[in-house]
């Protein structure tokens, strides 16, 4: 029997993996990958709560769909920013990007 707690613990572990990537990676793209993992963990939570605590409404799944859409927006804008930073500073390593103005 898979309970709500199973899903919540799994998503907590996935979230922690993403957090570790955000804290320790130098590459801007890898930091974005960590953020994607964290958003996925949140989505698993939303869908699991939908099934186990409010099955009659599909509100959790709708929330998850909106989070997926906004994650796509975030990825597009974030990767565009990485490209722009690479054009002007010729690095995407965030600890080397230390200029406020070029």
């Amino acid at each position, binding site marked *: *029997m*898979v309970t*709500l*707690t199973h*899903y919540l*613990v*799994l998503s907590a*572990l*996935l*979230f*922690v*993996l*993403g*957090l*570790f*990537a955000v*804290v*320790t*990676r*130098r*590459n801007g*793209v*890898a930091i974005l*990958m960590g953020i*994607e*993992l964290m958003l*996925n963990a949140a*989505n*698993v939570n939303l*869908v*699991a709560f939908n*099934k*186990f*605590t*409010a*099955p*009659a409404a*599909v*509100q959790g*799944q*709708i929330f998850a*769909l*909106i989070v*997926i*859409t*906004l*994650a*796509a927006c*975030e*990825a*597009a*804008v974030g*990767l*565009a920013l*990485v*490209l*722009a930073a*690479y*054009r002007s500073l010729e690095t*995407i390593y965030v600890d080397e990007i230390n200029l406020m103005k070029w």
Partner: protein
Amino acid sequence: MSGETVAFYVLAVITLGAGVIVVTSPNIVHSAVALIPAFLGVTGLYILLNAEFVAVIQVLIYAGAITVLILFVIMLTEGGTGLRVHQRNEQGVVGAAVAGAMAALLYAVVTRTAWGTGTGTLPAYTPGAIGQSFLGPNLLVFEGTSIVLLVSLIGAIIIARKED
């Protein structure tokens, strides 16, 4: 153990194993490709949770679009090889400590809270219910999301294009 339990643990191992590769691989291209099994594992979890529509959208957007976008940007910035000596900064120990503390905190909260159990059952056909809800009670959210999507894509184009 029932089939659902077996499926859950297999999917959990796939997701977390791929996630560990994403987080720790010294080659950024390997990290990006390892995102695909991680997202597909989450897709399997959605199917286990009777959220078929969310699962399909997850495959289309995450495993399809976002991974390809990330690979494109890696190829455009790193020259394709992705190999550079230091992919991680010197905060590895601190980061692991923070992540471990966060994991312990979340585990304690999740296991000690008495989550309520809901009444009722999921609709037999969830895509239909989602569509009804998006064009009914959630119409404003739907429209707002579409505007955010449009604005962010225009913004991404403007930020990423070459200045002339």
